[in-house]
């Protein structure tokens, strides 16, 4: 039986190699991938250089700010710069549409800002040419042109009748054709991922993790197998070659463009993010005004003071020579942070809920599922961005507390007249953020992986069932 499947696969491969349309598409896809790979690498490398420069500037500026009051320094703040993932050159994902920096200042939590997409000259819909775009959108189209006629055209020309008369079984045929498609897909995936990652040798500052590259190949192979299954199913059901072609093409358009767009639309309608001005007002009214102008300060300061005294087993502030102003400032941080936890928690919840809608949408589109996994592996997805924002906020709280505590313990009566110097600035840690590991990413995107598997199994078994039924008296 295995030899039969291999014979079918061999014949299909011979046919593919002779198919001009498919060859042209492959050559085009490879050419675009090479161009896209080089372009993306140049952009990512440029972004990496700019980030490194900005990080250096920020550190130098911070260390060389001279003598200053620690709380003034907290206002002067520091920037958390989002790392540039090397695989961003393969799949830029949401990278350009997400803020690249977080300003870490006293009293205020800030969301990531400075989105690269704002300065792009053209914003044509769905048109960011990256190797991943070619692999996830154009190659499935190549699979459609390759496979739409695999059963339907055989039926149309009559060869299917002869094959059935020669005792071919539905699953042998489908599996043989599927194996051929997967072999082609595997070759394409390996070749194109390799082509896309080739420029890495020219950019030695960016190191690619080999397991991630392998995971990408595996993800694309799984994705292509699912898509091949769907096209084979369409081809098995369609009554003629052009009907099969239209159905498969419309499905491709739906999967590659309509489902992601509709998913994003529904996500934004169902879980809208707050508008900037309302959000700013909420921060003013809930995190600032109640403390500085309202009655919240007294209670908050008392609580914090008690906590500090307990920590030092002291009876009152004077015995520790605590600076009252610094105490108040840090008490405000604690007060505001609770508000930020709520406001930003809700904000990021909305982001994640929007992601969940798209995750559900990916159940309808193997292309979207594949794109989401690819972005995750490359570290250019919204999940990674939210983790970056949260990590930056944790760091902000840490450094502001450190600076306020320095003033609290050392300013004495000088209060704002107290100045610290470089030795304090040097104790402030630089922001360090690691993107989620590969296993975390795969765990996070387990639904999408399961979706692809489900599509593969469902489409494959349905195609087998449909064709098997046709072979048993329903061929006409």
């Amino acid at each position, binding site marked *: 039986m295995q*030899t*039969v499947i291999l*014979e*079918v696969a061999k*014949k299909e491969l*011979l*046919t593919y*190699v*002779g*198919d001009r349309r498919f060859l042209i598409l492959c050559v085009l896809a490879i050419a675009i991938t090479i161009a896209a790979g080089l372009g993306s690498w140049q952009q990512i490398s440029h972004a990496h250089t700019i980030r490194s420069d900005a990080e250096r500037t920020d550190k130098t500026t911070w260390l060389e700010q001279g003598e200053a009051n620690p709380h003034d320094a907290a206002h002067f703040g520091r920037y958390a710069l989002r790392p540039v993932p090397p695989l961003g050159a393969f799949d830029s994902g949401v990278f350009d549409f997400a803020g690249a920096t977080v300003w870490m200042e006293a009293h205020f939590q800030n969301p990531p800002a400075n989105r690269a997409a704002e300065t792009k000259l053209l914003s044509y819909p769905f048109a960011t040419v990256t190797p991943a775009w070619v692999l996830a959108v154009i190659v499935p189209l190549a699979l459609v042109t390759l496979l739409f006629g695999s059963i339907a055209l*055989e039926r149309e*020309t*009559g*060869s299917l*009748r*002869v*094959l*059935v*008369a*020669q*005792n*071919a*079984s539905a699953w*042998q045929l489908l599996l043989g054709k599927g194996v051929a498609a997967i072999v082609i897909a595997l070759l394409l995936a390996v070749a194109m991922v390799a082509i896309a990652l080739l420029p890495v040798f020219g950019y030695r500052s960016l190191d690619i993790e080999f397991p991630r590259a392998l995971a990408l190949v595996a993800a694309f192979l799984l994705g292509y197998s699912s898509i091949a299954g769907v096209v084979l199913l369409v081809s098995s059901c369609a009554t003629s070659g052009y009907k099969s072609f239209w159905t498969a093409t419309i499905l491709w358009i739906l999967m590659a463009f309509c489902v992601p767009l509709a998913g994003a639309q529904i996500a934004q309608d169902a879980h809208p993010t707050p508008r900037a001005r309302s959000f700013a007002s909420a921060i003013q009214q809930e995190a600032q005004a109640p403390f500085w102008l309202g009655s919240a300060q007294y209670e908050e300061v008392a609580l914090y003071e008690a906590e500090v005294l307990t920590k030092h087993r002291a009876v009152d502030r004077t015995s520790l020579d605590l600076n009252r102003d610094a105490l108040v400032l840090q008490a405000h941080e604690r007060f505001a942070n609770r508000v930020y936890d709520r406001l930003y928690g809700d904000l990021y919840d909305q982001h994640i809920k929007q992601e969940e809608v798209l995750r559900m949408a990916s159940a309808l589109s193997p292309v979207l599922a594949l794109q989401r996994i690819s972005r995750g592996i490359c570290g250019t997805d919204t999940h990674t961005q939210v983790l970056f924002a949260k990590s930056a906020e944790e760091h902000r709280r840490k450094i502001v507390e450190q600076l306020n505590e320095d003033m609290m313990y050392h300013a004495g009566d000088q209060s704002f007249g107290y100045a610290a110097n470089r030795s304090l600035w040097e104790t402030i840690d630089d922001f360090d953020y690691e993107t989620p590991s590969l296993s975390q990413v795969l765990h996070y995107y387990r639904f999408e992986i399961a979706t692809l598997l489900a599509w593969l199994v469902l489409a494959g078994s349905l195609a087998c069932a449909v064709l098997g039924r046709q*072979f*048993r*008296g*329903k*061929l*006409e």
Partner: protein
Amino acid sequence: MADGIAALQAIDVSKSFADVPALVGISLSVEPGEVLCLLGPNGAGKTTLISVFLGFLQPDSGSSLIFGVDSVIDPVEARKRVSYVPERVALYPQLSAIQNVEFFNSFGPDRGKTGYFQQCLLDVGLQEHHHNQKTKTFSKGMSQKVGLAIALAKQSEVIFLDEPLTGLDPGAAAEFVSRIHWLQESGTAILVATHDLFHVSSMANRIGLLRSGRLLDLVEATELGAYELEKLYLERMSQPS
């Protein structure tokens, strides 16, 4: 080869499409080494009967047996002993003649070797220098020969030929008929659907006249000359249904 039962047997087979009868109570049988030609105009039900025998269509009533195996109940088993050459032989244009024969015969338990397939192609009259040519360059007659070679290579005991002579020039048609006789002599039962009055007498042992799904006559080919057959055919076809 013969195991005491008919190679093909149709018992009261009926089939209709959306209330239009395509086959009405057809009963016939074909013995091993016999050629039965079903003669009739377009839409008479010839191809439908072949489809029923091959298990591509389920009859509304009746049964179709291939060496006693019901092709409706167990189409896979039934098809093991048959080959089929459709009206328009569909070959894979990117493959050569030999590759086509090899591929179409990769599904059975005893797959032959390349030498055997080449012999099959030679047996049906395809010259050796065409064996490795891509079939997209082939004429209808050459494709037909490859189709027959595919059927032959399976070493089946029954062959269905659907309008095998349509589109062939007289020389090619005569050559094709001689190949059928050669197969018949080796004991193969052959069911031919055709509307070619000119060749049918020389091709068949028996001739079945079919019109609107009904088998009007089943006559021995030796009983009728070409003129009598034409007369009978025109007479039957002009009768009110």
